[in-house]
């Protein structure tokens, strides 16, 4: 085989590989649009807030993906839905407004594609981030106390402070990163119906 022939062949094979996935993928999922809800006129999936998008980056940088996935499967071949990890399976359109779009690597912990439905309360999520064992004494989820600031309580405890017994007049306040992360977690919910994945 001549080197020029080999070069052309390699180039074609690589191009086919790349275009076969990325270009076809673009035509299939890259040009997707949200569905408008007929009653409310809101888009489905809902557009993520700026805070939640920042939170997606916090989620990635804290390495939550090493233990948590963001994709519910099923109903056949998987127990995800029976485990309560989502009202329906995740489909490509659900990731439309995710920036960055992430899927996760492992399920050392539970799937979080619907954590915004399972644990909707800000206080609960904050508490979990600060110390998961406050909510579940046996939790293996690592704590993230660096997402919180310790500050003197002053005359009164602020609204945002964690509901923990205060020591030495200190209160624990979520940093911007914690607020963004919680906004992101709350945005993770697929409780809307899509033509390709209707809610039962």
């Amino acid at each position, binding site marked *: *085989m001549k080197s020029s022939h080999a070069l052309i062949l390699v180039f074609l094979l690589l191009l086919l590989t790349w275009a076969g*996935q990325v270009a076809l993928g673009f035509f299939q999922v890259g040009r997707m649009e949200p569905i408008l809800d007929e009653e409310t006129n809101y888009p489905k999936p809902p557009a993520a807030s700026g805070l939640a998008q920042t939170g997606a980056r916090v989620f990635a940088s*804290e390495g939550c993906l090493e233990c948590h996935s963001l994709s519910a499967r099923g109903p056949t071949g998987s*127990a995800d839905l029976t485990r309560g990890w989502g009202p329906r399976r995740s489909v490509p359109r659900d990731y439309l*407004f995710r920036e960055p*779009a*992430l899927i996760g690597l492992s399920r050392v912990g539970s799937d979080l594609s619907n954590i915004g439905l399972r644990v909707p309360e800000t206080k609960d999520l904050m508490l979990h981030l600060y110390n998961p064992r406050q909510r579940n004494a046996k939790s293996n989820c690592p704590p993230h106390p660096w997402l919180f600031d310790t500050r003197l309580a002053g005359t009164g405890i602020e609204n945002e402070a964690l509901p923990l017994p205060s020591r030495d007049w200190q209160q624990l306040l979520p940093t911007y990163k914690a607020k963004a992360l919680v906004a992101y977690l709350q945005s993770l919910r697929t409780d809307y119906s899509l033509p390709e994945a209707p809610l039962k």
Partner: protein
Amino acid sequence: MNIPSSSKTNLSVGILLVGSVSWALLGAGLQVLATLQLLVPSLAYLVPIPWIGYGHIAPLVSFLFTYGWIASGFLGVLLILIPRISGILSPSGRLLTGAAIVWQFAVLVGMAEILWSGSTGLISLPFSRSVTALFLLSYLILGSALSRGLGGSWKSGPLLPRLYLLGALLALPLGLGTAEVLLRGGLAPGALQIIMQFVWHSFLYHLWLTPLALVFLFQLLPALTGRPAGSLSLGLLSWIATIGFGGWVGNSLASEGPMPSWLQSAGVIATLLLGVAVLGNTLLLKPLLDGKWEECRRQVSLRFFAVGFWSYFASYAWLAFLALPGVRQTTTFTMVGQATQALLIFSFYGNVLAGAVYSLLPASRSIGWPSHPALTLHFWFTTLGAALIALAYALAGIFQGLALNDPGVPMSTISSYLRPFLVVALAGQLFWWLGQLAFSSIFFASLLKLFPSVAPVAIFPPDREATKQSLTPAHP
């Protein structure tokens, strides 16, 4: 002809290999720390420090192994091998040295980023855009030096290693460049980003590192054993299938959610067909090793190549097994991923790299490996370690997948059942680290010429002639 380029490439080779050995040691140490945290979650409660937490260390470890240890090492030994088979000098030794330094600098910056501010969360792209730029800059120089040698020696030696090198040389810039532009240039919306991440993941491992490892197997196994690789047409078919299907493999590991279903099916089919290509290569290379037990025992490099070769087969057989429909659904998002990593990186690439260093470095440096117990330690500890890690994670992953699919088993029960496997994996990682430590000691001692260089290349005396012949070009 004698090695014309050795003085010019010597420094760059040194930098790439010293970097490689150091990143491997560091990565292996951190890996132990990561596994310890999975095993004893309370550690994170005792010492809550962000940058040594599992979420930072786990992506860092695979970054260090892939880009630091294996990539840097492969580039280093290629810079020894290619000038020797082509007789073509690199344009400028200084430029190559600069490129080698830039590669190490990129790994260093990537490491600092992941430690301090965390990974980007993108699969196989955990670092920032500037690190990508550094890698590509360095690769532009190193890769073009390699391709000059490749083009100039196309006709003067076996075809298959050259074909694999050609595929690898093109795959990295195409994959990394487009992943960077699409993922961080805001050009890929939503689920397309996830498709692109898997494409890049496949390019990195199956179209870059695997073909590079095959360059060494196809070039050096015949040289070391004195036997030619068999049928060229089978080799060509396997090569086409490797380059044609390798880039699709990642899809077979992806979960259902964001991936269109045809892409998953394409991934499954490609993985199975790639398995056939690997079988073809196995049939080609296996006869070279048949009945060579005695040589494998005596020659350090051949021993590592033999294990590397069988791990090549095992890695892709394992990937094909994971792609089977029932298995795939059960094992996505489980620890089988770590088993695949252990097989590919530790057993396949790592052993091929070690074999290449043992056989090629003496030629470039005129140093000999002393017959030192550390060589034996290196081999047994890394082989045993890698096997333990792969086995433990494979079983853990399958078990974890079955348990996850049974909604009656709570998550906390699953984690407690996984503990024994993690203990075995941890032991394997410690073994591997010790083996690597033995290698590093002998590597650095040899580089510093602490041993009397009595017998350069003494590690393969009986086949020395065969080796020399194929390592030096057939120029007049």
